[in-house]
Structure formats: structure tokens, C-alpha cells
């Protein structure tokens, strides 16, 4: 019998052992393919140019993520493979005892791995192709486009990529496997099943030291993150490396630490506690690697979920950011994106009178001048010490703008000014409320003005895809004389059917890209509600979708790793549970022991991942809020809910099936 035939028979014979490995592989390949075939899904959709740009952007994001994901999946393969080899060791030992050469045994092992890899590659790709069809519909509904007729989505590029990435991973596992068999003494192979894996677990004292070290490393990471000490790439990488090392050490020493901590205490000698702890620590070699991976995957998952959901929720708020059908903003050209220079007011009106046909919009359009207010001595800081861009707007212009939105006008008392703030999240809101309540005195044209809490308005004043943390002060018109303008805005509401006037409006204004006023170069920017909705509805929704998708994938992947580990553990341990039953432990005690064991295995990575992401989201939240004005901290609750459902479901399913296994055994 050739080695290949023997190998094939082995695979068939140990199908049960291989099932876990096969499932993990198939699952990983399937996800990898679906992820990478996202780009080819656009082929079947009728996309606008903005939408296909979104898809292109998505593709490049997916491209850079797929490397990261393939590393994770590679770990998954090696991890599942480890289980397999452990179970097969004894068999290989018997081959060697019977006089088979190590080369022949290695050859059998290589063939086995090749068969399994090919089978799971084919199965995974088939499953992935099937899943991609469904994903196309989900993506399409999110993008709000139709799929005309049935198209079979098939991405040759994604298949090629999957084969290359997993081919490499398989070669790597092959190398590991052969080395493991070649390296080991015959006696270790034969007695593999009987030995504890205790050898690599740190001694109790070392475990405590390692544990303290891991806490220290994690502390350093958290402090660095909270203090935002990661401006340079070097520091960022350092922080991530320290965090990863801390996580790794944490799980490496966790069971040893628990053992050392409770071994001398009473609870240790209660019920099956000592059995549970010993079970955990005896499996240290396999569990600490998987727990570290699971913890990091969960971390990514939580962050992706909460920011994805945050974006999805932000969409609703964004849509309120389009108060008119269109706006044309005219402002000074910038150099390097810094402070814009000021110009003489009226530039917009003079630019518009130059032979532009805006008669269609005459009744429903109005221009507003936003003045420079840098000399008024406004003392205000947003969250994190950020100074907003300040504008001054006349009361008449402001109330006219409000009227166009259908909002009630602002009424100012003598020596009072109003504050308007578009959007920017809860932090800004709190800061402004405090500022207004404090009076916020300033001097304008020689007069001292104050404000009140009730004069703070939250009204978007321009159509923009960007949430706008600009601060607009509203003052009586007489105080504006002689001021320089900072920007001028033409507010347009369409008098009738949107699409037709959109075309008219764009035709009339699209060439107003540049203008000049007293030698200052001005640039015009027109944005319409339809454009904004398009952009937000597509880009943001798609990114949110991607983030949620990734979050769920990582969540499911990590839960799968744990479930596989626990189930295979339970099947390995059936004889131990039966023994416990023989010496008097009843079913309730056994169930509780299984529950505790599963709880620790599922709970420990989750808890650490939650700690990681609490810090991560707090920091990321500050950053995204500053940059994009998106508040993601609130959605962490929703993310936690999704997590609980999926992860908790996996936990319960694993617990129940392992209990069934033990009860049946």
C-alpha cells in the first residue's frame, strides 16, 4: 500500500477527529473568499458613479484588511491542526514501533494534510461562493440599488487569492506537523494521550510573576492610549506590541495564577472546583494561544461593531444636516488648509449678477454673509481643548435662514447675542451649554454682549456631507458694519420637483468655481441635498455595513475557536467525567463543573477584550468625534447587545452540547 493510499484511509477512518479541523478550515476559507469577493459583487448591480467609487474604496480597504484576516485565519488553521496531531500521535507511534521509517510516517502525514487541505479548500470555496450570492443581495439593499435578474457572482481573483493565502498556510502547517513527528521521542508519541500538558505551564511563583508582569504591560498600554502617546508610527507600534505581549502573558499565566491564588483557600476544596482548575491548567499549552487570539479578535470585533453601529446611527443625524435643497458656499482659497483669509462682503451677490439665470430660484433663495469675528475676544474651547472656527452672522440673515428651514426665529434682547452650532456630538453640546449658561461675554463694535442658555440653537446652516463643528455667533445687524466676510452662502430651496430643479440649479451654478473680490481669490462649492443623501446613504452605510460585517465575522470566528476547543475538550474528557460520576459526583455537580469551565474559557477573553475596547473606544471616540463629529461611545451598548446575542448563544450551545456529550458518554 502506498503512503498516499494509507493516508487516504486514515483520513476516512479518523473522520471524527478530522471533523473539527475540517470545519474550522472550511469556515475560514469561506469567510476569506466572501470577504475578498466583495468587489466583484458590484458587477451585478446598477451603480451610480458615486456608488462605484464607494465600492472601489471598499475594495482597497478590504485588500489591506485581508492580510490581517489571513494571519488570523492562519493561526486558526495551525490551532485546529494542533488538536488533530495530538490525537493522532499515538497512531504514528504505533507505526514507528512496527518498524516504519520516520520518512514514511512523515510522508503519510504530508498526504493526509494535503487531502484534508484540498477537501476543505474545495468545500470552503463552494460554501463561500454560495454565501457571496446572498451577500450581494444584502449589500445591494444597503446601497439601495437593484440587482436586475439573477447573476452568478464568481470572483476568479478572490479564488486565486484564497488559494495562494491558504496554500501558504497549509505549507506552514505541513512544516509544523512533520517537525512535530520527527522531533518527538517514540515513547512520547505512544504515551501522548496519557500525558498532561503540564510541562510548559509556568511554576506557581513564575505564574504569579508573569501575571503581575502582564497586568503591568496592559497598564502601560492603557495609560499610553489614554494619554494619546501614540503620535508617531513607532510609538503606536510599540504600544500595540506591548498590549499584545501583555494579553499573551495574561492568558499564559492566568490558570497558574488562579491555581496559586486559590489553591490554599477553602473554595478550592469545595465541590469540583479543584478538578475544574486543574483541567484548565492542564490544557494550558493549547488554551493560552487560542485565548489570546480570541481576545484580540473579540477586541477588533467590539471596536468594529460599535463604530459600525455608531456610523449607522450617525446616518440619521447626518440626514438632518441637509436643511435646504442646495447651498453654494463662497470663501477664500486656502493655502495648505489653514485659516482662510477674509474678504469684502458682497462678493457672492456680485458674482451671481454676472449673467446667471437664477430667476427660477429667485423666490426661494437668499444669500447670507458670515463675518469674521476673531477680534471679539471669544473665550471658548470644545472638548479636548479644540478651538472651533468662529463666524458672525447678522440676526436678519440668520432668521431668514431659519425661516427657510421652517424653524422659529431667534429673538435677541438688548446687548445679547445668540449661538448656533450645527452638530458635533455630546461633548460639544455640553461645552457649549456650559459656555452659554456662563454668559460668555464678548465685545463687538464697542458694545459688550452676553448670551443665555436659551439663546443656544442647534441648527444646520448649510448643506454638507461633513458634520460641522463650526460655531456661528448671531448678533444684531447694526454691529456688523465695516466687518470683513469669511464666507458667503447662497441658500436655495427648489420651488418644485427636486430632480428637475437640481439639474437647473447645477447648470446655473456649476461654473462658479472661482471668483475674486478685491484681489482675494475665492472658490465656490455647491452641494445639494440629493448629493449629500447619496453620499451618506452609500458611503457611510457601506462603511458601517463593512464594519458590522467584520465585527460579526470576527465574533463568530472567535466563538467558533472557543466552541471547537471546548467541545473537543469535552470529548477528550468523557472518561474523566464518567470517573467522577463513579466516585459519587452527581449530574448536577458535573454540569456545574462543565459550566464553570466553559464560562472561564468564554468569559476570560471577553472580559479582557472588553477592557481593551473600553480604552480603545474611549480614545477612538475622542478622535472620531474630533475629526468626523461622530459619537460612537453611545453605540457601544448596542454593540454589547449584538455581542451578547452571538457570543452568549455560542457559549450556551457549547455548554449544552458538551453536557450532552458527557451525559451520553
Amino acid at each position: 500500500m502506498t503512503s498516499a493510499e494509507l493516508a487516504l484511509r486514515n483520513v476516512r477512518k479518523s473522520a471524527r477527529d478530522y471533523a473539527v479541523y475540517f470545519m474550522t478550515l472550511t469556515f475560514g476559507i469561506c469567510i476569506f473568499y466572501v470577504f475578498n469577493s466583495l468587489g466583484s459583487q458590484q458587477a451585478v448591480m446598477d451603480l451610480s458613479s458615486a456608488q462605484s467609487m464607494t465600492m472601489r474604496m471598499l475594495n482597497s480597504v478590504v485588500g489591506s484588511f485581508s492580510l490581517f484576516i489571513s494571519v488570523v485565519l492562519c493561526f486558526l488553521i495551525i490551532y485546529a491542526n494542533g488538536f488533530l496531531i495530538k490525537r493522532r500521535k499515538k497512531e504514528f507511534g504505533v507505526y514507528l514501533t512496527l518498524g516504519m521509517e520516520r520518512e514514511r510516517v512523515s510522508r503519510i502525514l504530508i498526504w493526509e494534510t494535503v487531502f484534508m487541505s484540498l477537501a476543505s479548500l474545495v468545500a470552503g470555496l463552494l460554501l463561500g461562493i454560495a454565501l457571496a450570492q446572498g451577500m450581494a443581495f444584502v449589500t445591494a439593499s444597503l446601497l439601495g440599488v437593484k440587482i436586475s435578474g439573477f447573476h452568478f457572482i464568481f470572483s476568479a481573483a478572490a479564488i486565486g487569492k484564497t488559494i495562494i493565502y491558504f496554500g501558504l498556510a497549509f505549507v506552514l502547517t505541513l512544516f509544523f506537523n512533520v517537525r512535530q513527528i520527527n522531533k518527538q521521542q517514540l515513547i512520547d508519541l505512544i504515551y501522548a494521550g496519557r500525558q498532561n500538558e503540564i510541562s510548559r505551564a509556568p511554576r506557581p511563583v513564575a505564574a504569579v510573576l508573569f501575571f503581575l508582569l502582564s497586568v503591568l504591560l496592559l497598564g502601560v498600554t492603557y495609560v499610553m492610549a489614554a494619554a494619546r502617546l501614540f503620535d508617531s508610527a513607532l510609538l503606536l507600534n510599540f504600544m500595540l506590541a506591548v498590549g499584545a505581549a501583555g494579553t499573551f502573558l495574561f492568558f499564559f499565566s492566568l490558570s497558574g495564577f488562579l491555581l496559586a491564588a486559590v489553591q490554599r483557600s477553602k473554595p478550592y476544596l469545595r465541590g469540583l472546583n479543584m478538578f475544574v482548575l486543574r483541567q484548565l491548567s492542564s490544557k494550558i499549552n493549547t488554551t493560552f494561544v487560542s485565548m489570546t487570539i480570541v481576545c484580540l479578535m473579540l477586541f477588533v470585533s467590539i471596536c468594529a461593531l460599535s463604530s459600525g453601529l455608531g456610523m449607522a446611527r450617525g446616518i440619521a443625524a447626518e440626514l438632518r444636516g441637509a436643511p435646504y435643497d442646495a447651498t453654494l458656499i463662497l470663501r477664500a482659497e486656502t493655502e495648505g488648509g489653514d485659516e482662510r483669509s477674509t474678504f469684502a462682503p458682497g462678493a457672492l451677490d456680485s458674482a451671481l449678477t454676472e449673467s446667471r439665470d437664477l430667476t427660477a430660484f429667485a423666490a426661494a433663495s437668499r444669500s447670507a454673509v458670515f463675518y469674521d469675528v476673531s477680534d471679539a475676544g471669544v473665550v471658548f474651547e470644545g472638548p479636548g481643548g479644540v478651538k472651533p472656527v468662529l463666524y458672525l452672522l447678522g440676526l436678519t440673515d440668520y432668521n431668514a435662514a431659519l425661516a427657510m428651514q421652517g424653524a422659529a426665529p431667534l429673538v435677541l434682547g438688548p446687548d445679547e447675542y445668540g449661538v448656533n452650532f450645527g452638530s458635533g456630538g455630546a461633548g460639544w453640546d455640553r461645552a457649549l451649554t456650559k459656555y452659554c449658561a456662563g454668559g460668555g461675554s464678548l465685545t463687538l463694535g464697542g458694545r459688550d454682549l452676553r448670551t443665555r442658555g436659551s439663546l443656544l440653537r442647534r441648527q444646520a446652516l448649510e448643506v454638507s456631507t461633513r458634520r460641522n463643528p463650526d460655531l456661528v455667533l448671531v448678533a444684531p445687524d447694526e454691529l456688523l458694519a465695516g466687518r470683513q466676510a469669511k464666507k458667503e452662502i447662497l441658500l436655495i430651496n427648489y420651488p418644485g420637483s427636486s430632480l428637475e430643479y437640481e439639474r437647473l440649479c447645477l447648470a446655473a451654478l456649476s461654473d462658479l468655481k472661482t471668483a475674486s473680490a478685491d484681489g482675494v481669490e475665492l472658490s465656490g462649492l455647491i452641494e445639494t441635498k440629493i448629493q449629500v443623501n447619496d453620499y451618506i446613504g452609500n458611503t457611510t452605510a457601506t462603511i458601517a455595513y463593512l464594519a458590522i460585517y467584520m465585527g460579526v465575522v470576527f465574533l463568530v470566528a472567535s466563538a467558533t475557536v472557543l466552541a471547537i476547543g471546548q467541545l473537543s475538550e469535552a470529548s477528550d474528557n468523557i472518561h474523566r467525567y464518567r470517573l467522577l460520576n463513579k466516585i459519587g459526583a452527581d449530574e448536577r455537580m458535573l454540569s456545574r463543573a462543565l459550566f464553570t469551565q466553559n464560562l472561564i474559557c468564554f468569559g476570560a477573553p471577553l472580559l479582557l477584550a472588553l477592557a481593551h475596547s473600553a480604552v480603545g473606544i474611549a480614545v477612538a471616540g475622542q478622535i472620531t468625534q474630533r475629526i468626523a463629529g461622530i459619537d460612537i461611545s453611545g453605540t457601544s451598548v448596542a454593540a454589547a447587545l449584538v455581542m451578547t446575542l452571538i457570543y452568549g448563544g455560542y457559549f450556551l450551545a457549547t455548554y449544552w452540547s458538551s453536557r450532552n456529550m458527557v451525559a451520553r458518554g
Partner: protein
Amino acid sequence: MILQAENLEKHYGGKNNLTKALNGVTFSVAAGEFLGVMGASGSGKTTLLNCVSTIDSVTSGRILIGGRDVTAMSGKTLARFRRETLGFIFQDFNLLDTLTGFENIALALTILRRPANATKEQVRDVAAVLGITDVLPKFPYQMSGGQRQRVAAARAIVTKPALVLADEPTGALDSQAARALLESFQELVRTRGATILMVTHDAFSASYCHRILFIRDGRVFRELARGNESRKVFFDQIIEVVSLLGGDGHDLR
């Protein structure tokens, strides 16, 4: 009397092929007695042990352990009774390989939810009697077979059960380890007042008992008490009965 078995019957199969594994077995064990049960394979000695240990149920007859009728118990009561009243020693040790010797013994106590503060002392006491104090911190795979079986014995006895049931405890041991184990059984009976019912096919092991029941075809075939005889004489008597058992009596397996 710790154990009273009255007219035990155990039938297998249906009307056409009825097998009577136990066919009217009656015997009793006094407190502090070390009783051996011998018999060829198929004689019904394992069935007898299973019935006494409440793992299997009898077709008819009564088994009283400590005055309570176990044949009338069911479900949870039975599990609890087994846990609190009986101790088990198996042929293949059945130690948990992930636990140290100490923990294996202590486990029997923690399962019974005995107070934790007395656990250490109780384990050390019984370990001292069995001569395994040195191996308490070791894992089973670091012990010899004899040490493992004595740890298993310690686990069975540490809860002070009314009756210890040992199923071929020397079956997997060499003669020296077997002798050491049997001597510790005697020691347990002498110092702790343990009551042991041991099933064995080995005449040498049996010679350590106070009294021996010979089972054949589901009945008590002979009974032999050691009295004040030396172990050597008792051993010869056993060999005599074994040869009388006939059939594959010389090789009782």
C-alpha cells in the same frame, strides 16, 4: 451487620433464553470484616458486586446496607446513598490524571461537601496508614502502579464509608505491589475499622481476607473462614476449594 443480602436473584434475557446470573445468593458482612468473593468468570461474582454497589438492580431479593434496603431506593436517593455510604476501588485505579495524589483523595471529600478545613488532615491521616505520604504532591503518571492503587484505596476510604467495594484491585499489580496493597487493606480494617468486600480471582490475594465466599453458577458454592489459621494454611485451603470449583477452575479467568 453492615451488609445483608437475602436470596438475591438476577435474571437476564427473555422467556426462551433465561440466564440466572444470580440464583438465590444469601450472605452477610459484619462491621470491620474483610470479605473476599471468588469465582470463575461467568460465575456471577461481578453481577453480585454490581448489585451490591447499586450500579445494577436485582430481579428479586433484598440488599440491606447499614440497615437500609437499597433495592427499594431509586434515582437521587440512590446516588446520594452510594456517595455517602460506599467506597469504590477499581482494577484500573481510575485516578484523575490532571489531579495530584492529594487532590485525588481530597476530591472524594469535596464531592460530599465535607467541611474544607478538615480535609487536609483527613487526607494526611489516611495517606499515612497506606504509606503514600510521599506521593501526595505527585501526579498519577509520576507514580508506580502500586502507589496509584493505594491512592485509589485512600480515596475510597477517606470518606469513612460503611462499606468499601474493591473489584479485582490487585489485577493490574505485580506481586510485590499487590502484597503491599493487601497489607494496607488489613491495616485499614485494623486501625480504621473499615469493612471491605473484595472480588478477586487470585488465591493469593484472597488469602488476606477474613472469610471467602466462592460463587458458582449464581449460587454460594462454599464459604471459608480463616479463623486463627496462618495465612499459609488458609491459602492452601483456598487452593483446594478452587480446584473443587472445577471446569476452568485452575485458571479462574
